[in-house]
């Protein structure tokens, strides 16, 4: 009886706190040097107690004007710089740039190179989503355990990248018209091994996390992004699909040879942090399906077209025709696009990057208003930004 009486009290009294005494707003700068801003990103947050009243992001700490450097260099010379855009998925950055230049110059890509590119892009998606889930749990406070499980799996994939392209994170592997070098001899066995026990890792990961009540109570109905706002604010990638909008550029544009693969696009329902977490786990499972199909169907043949090989051999002589082109792909963080204007010289006249994390930040404030400081941190984590791409 006493218990029920207490619960009744707690429902009525505590919900209407009238603040007679004037409280002062606490203005806190979260960042640029902060354990969980995923890089040098600052949020100027005004707090009323613990709840966020105003949040103004400030960026540009890592700005090195990648676009001005690209205008001074030849087309191929900015390929290694695209690795530094989103330094977690360097292969998809290369792929986006290669596709944009191929659209600009009209270069054909042989079959085997298309398959290699799809395999590398999907492996990068696995790397990015695993890392993101790990770091999201880090922001939630789990003392590095999920992150280190994620790193353990990522290492296997990075060893593949190193053996094929020469470097673990800064691969610089794709060329206009194909890839720099063919897959190294032991590639297929290692890939088969990864693809086979990745689902087992994901099941263990889900067993550790998805049903965890603390994670559910911390992430469900937090930082909700309504469907219409997501579309209007051109959010892209898992952030958009978690709000339920069915827009995946691999399906919409069907670039490279993605239409040949059978895979599904997971969609969230509420659009909160929990949906973004779980949509990424489901996307990883879809990527594994694509990898299985690509592994079986990869044909032998040349890994770079003749025209591409000569272009790679002497970048000075690679002069795309006058005009402009906009190539875009579905990078793990969203729509990564390159807008190139060429005036016939070996240097691009205008080189613009459409970075997904930079534009996904437009609605960070809308999601964080009214929630606690701890929520603002995990909402930023769930948006999945990488400062190399935000600041370029």
């Amino acid at each position, binding site marked *: 009886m006493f218990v029920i009486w207490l619960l009744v009290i707690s429902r009525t009294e505590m919900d209407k706190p009238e603040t007679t005494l004037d409280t002062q707003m606490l203005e806190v700068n979260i960042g640029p040097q902060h354990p969980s801003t995923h890089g040098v990103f600052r949020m100027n947050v005004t707090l009323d107690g613990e709840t966020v009243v105003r949040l103004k992001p400030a960026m540009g700490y890592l700005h090195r004007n990648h676009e001005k450097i690209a205008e001074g260099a030849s087309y191929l010379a900015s390929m290694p710089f695209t690795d530094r855009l989103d330094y977690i998925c360097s292969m998809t950055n290369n792929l986006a740039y290669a596709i944009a230049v191929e659209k600009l110059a009209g270069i054909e890509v042989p079959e085997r190179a298309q398959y290699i590119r799809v395999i590398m892009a999907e492996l990068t998606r696995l790397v990015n989503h695993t890392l993101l889930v790990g770091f999201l749990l880090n922001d939630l406070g789990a003392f590095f355990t999920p992150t280190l499980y994620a790193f353990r799996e990522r*290492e296997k994939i990075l060893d593949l990248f190193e053996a094929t392209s020469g470097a673990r994170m800064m691969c610089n592997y794709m060329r206009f018209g194909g890839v720099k070098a063919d897959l190294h001899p032991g590639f297929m066995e290692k890939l088969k091994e990864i693809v086979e026990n990745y689902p087992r890792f994901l099941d*263990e990961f889900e067993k550790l996390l998805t049903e965890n009540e603390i994670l559910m109570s911390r992430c469900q109905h937090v930082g909700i992004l309504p469907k219409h706002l997501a579309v209007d604010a051109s959010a892209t990638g898992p952030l958009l699909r978690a709000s339920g909008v069915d827009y995946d550029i691999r399906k919409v544009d069907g670039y490279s040879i993605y239409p040949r693969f059978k895979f599904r696009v997971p969609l969230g329902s509420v659009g909160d942090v929990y949906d973004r977490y779980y949509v990424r786990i489901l996307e990883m499972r879809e990527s594994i399906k694509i990898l299985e199909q690509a592994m079986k169907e990869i044909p032998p043949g040349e890994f770079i077209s003749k025209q591409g090989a000569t272009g790679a051999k002497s970048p000075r002589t690679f002069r795309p025709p006058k005009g402009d082109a906009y190539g875009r792909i579905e990078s793990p963080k969203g729509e990564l696009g390159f807008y190139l204007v060429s005036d016939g010289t070996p240097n691009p006249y205008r080189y613009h990057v459409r970075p997904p994390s930079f534009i996904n930040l437009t609605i960070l404030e809308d999601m964080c208003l009214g929630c606690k400081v701890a929520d603002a941190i995990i909402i930023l984590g769930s948006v999945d930004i990488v400062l190399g791409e935000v600041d370029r």
Partner: protein
Amino acid sequence: MSYGLGILKGMSVTLKQFVESYTKKGSIVTVQYPEERREDVERFRNFPILVYDEKPEAPRCVACDICAKECPPKCITIVRDRDEQGRGLQKPKVFDIDLSVCMSCGICEEVCPFDAIFMDHQFELSAYDRMESLNYHQEKLLKPNSYLHQIRPTDATQIDAKLKAKEEAKKKTQPGTTA
């Protein structure tokens, strides 16, 4: 939904990992670096090296300056060697690579028409100051062809075969002069 099941399931995963770290062999992934080392990966690329066939004085590089022009961060400086009358020789007098600027992207190796520059596997190159000791001059960069065979067997053999084929082709085209 009571605070029960999900938490226990999560705890069972970490306990399994804890117990497995003692029982299962592959569970601990750390490589104890100085004692254990990862096996060498053939295509791994770190900083560039110049390759010479017989004598360090005659490297394959002919100072054509293509790699210096193509290098994205512009970290290679080449000065062509001149003999007494001032005519350019097919040999670099100065060939510096500023390792603090080089990002080991491997473009110089791709664009070099004479297969003279390759990416090394040596990564333990710490130095005391950033400026002078990281600006590698020609003597430090030169490595014998045998070293190339040791670190990159497949590529080295292909390149040797290609060079030998070019040699025969040159011998065949002007037999008059040499024969």
